């Protein structure tokens, strides 16, 4: 099978071969790595299982990061969800709790899947697992959706970047949310074109988001941006399943994200020299963790 180099090519290949995004990713990986379908599925099942553990642990007990800067918030959200008093309802609160949990587990030196990065490790698990629970999907279906997310991720990786140091937070959390939205659309029965519409909308909505980690650690403001990214993915999937299309196609939205990322000053690309990192409070946290000289 031809390797898709752009979103447009990806849609064409899927249409010509009458396959889904996930089947494209599976076929490509089997061809390029010489692995069987069973091996790929078995590895993806273990990937899903690590994702689920990370998205669960912080909701069952308070998990704190090594630095102590973040922690306990996933647990708070879960308690709030259980109280039945929330404004947005169970799917939204659950997704935010899952995303915070994975971020807290990451900060505590727990096990996570970098998807695409460690800093954005909460978004895809939170959005996909929440959608799966709401829609009553099986683990096999969720694994299939993870392959769909990777089909979009591969196009992002080939044409832009996942690195906050190169493209800001939009490259990390933006990519994670775009991949998640595309996967959920496939999970809900949408076409490859609809999936890419969802990914494009996510990128447009996160365009320009800077990477400004307090003390250079993937904690503040990263954990809450994971919660925000998960909600963006879920909301955008609904938008697209209702029939709304992106006026700007995926390839253009992706190119815009990459260009904006490179145009960001270096202070706003993971150097901890700008944004909330250098606010008085951000600097105070830095001193708290690393001392005065760092």
């Amino acid at each position: 099978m031809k390797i898709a180099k752009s979103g447009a090519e990806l849609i064409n290949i899927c249409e010509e071969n009458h396959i889904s995004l996930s089947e494209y990713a599976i076929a490509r990986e089997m061809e390029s790595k010489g692995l069987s379908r069973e091996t790929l599925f078995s590895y993806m099942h273990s990937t899903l299982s690590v994702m689920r553990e990370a998205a669960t642990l912080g909701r069952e007990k308070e998990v704190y990061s090594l630095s102590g800067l973040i922690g306990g918030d996933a647990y708070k959200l879960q308690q709030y969800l259980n109280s039945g008093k929330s404004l947005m309802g169970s799917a939204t609160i659950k997704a935010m709790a899952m995303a915070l949990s994975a971020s807290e587990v990451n900060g505590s030196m727990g096990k996570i899947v970098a998807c695409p990065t460690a800093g954005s490790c909460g978004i895809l698990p939170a959005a996909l697992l929440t959608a799966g629970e709401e829609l009553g999907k099986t683990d096999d279906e969720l694994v299939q959706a993870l392959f769909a997310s990777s089909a979009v991720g591969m196009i992002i990786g080939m044409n832009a970047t996942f690195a906050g140091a190169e493209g800001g937070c939009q490259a990390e959390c933006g990519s994670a949310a775009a991949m998640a939205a595309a996967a959920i659309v496939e999970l809900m029965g949408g076409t490859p074109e609809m999936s890419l519409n969802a990914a494009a909308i996510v990128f447009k909505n996160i365009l320009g988001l800077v990477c400004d980690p307090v003390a250079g650690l993937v904690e503040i403001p990263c954990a809450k941006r994971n919660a925000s990214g998960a909600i963006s993915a879920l909301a955008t999937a609904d938008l697209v399943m209702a029939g709304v299309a992106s006026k700007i196609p995926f390839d253009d939205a992706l190119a815009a994200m990459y260009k904006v990322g490179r145009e960001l000053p270096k202070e706003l690309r993971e150097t901890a020299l700008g944004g909330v990192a250098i606010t008085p409070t951000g600097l105070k946290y830095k001193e708290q963790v690393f001392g005065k000289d760092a």
Partner: protein
Amino acid sequence: MANVGVFDVLGPIMIGPSSSHTAGAARLGKIARTIVGKEIKEVTFLLHGSFSKTYKGHGTDRALVAGILGMNPDDARLRSSLELVKQQGIKIEFVPTDLGDYHPNTVKFLIKDIDDVTWEILGSSIGGGLIKIDEINGNKVNLTGEYPTIITSNEDVPGTLAKISGILYDAGINIASMKSDRSQKGKESTLTFELDHEVPLEVVEQIKLIQGMNHVITINPVGGPNNENC
């Protein structure tokens, strides 16, 4: 345009929080242990650049020690490696320093093995969990840990390279990459071969017998970011 695969996007599975400061650091420790290839008594970690400034917050110290203990970046025991290393009686020390013009995430290992031989190994974590080893005992090498590797120290005489590649050819082993380095013409030279297949012991013995050969190090892969269990 770089080729990107499914598990480049969804992976690696790792202990957080940072692929370069934690997962890469663990892989550096593990490859240093593999290079030494003997029981380890003492390790001093000279931490450079971002490693020296942020190692505590990123758990880089725990990850480096976990690697020295042989753990992979997805080993749940990584978090408690500082306690585990104490139990095993290995002496460790972290020294933030400036090593000069190196990658921001660089560490120099000073390792004393069971025979009181001291090893100096310098390597960097270059992003996404990828690593490279640049120096072993002062010799420049080119090592990523993703391939089986042979490193030789030999007299700088004509034909050594041809002899080694001849032995590898006869054994049906393909060379993925090769780097040659020498400090001075006619003095000792260092050759690094990254290979597509692991090297059987008898092939290593044949290489050791080449005239002028002083030292041969073999390294089995410590896994790429996406094949830790290989």
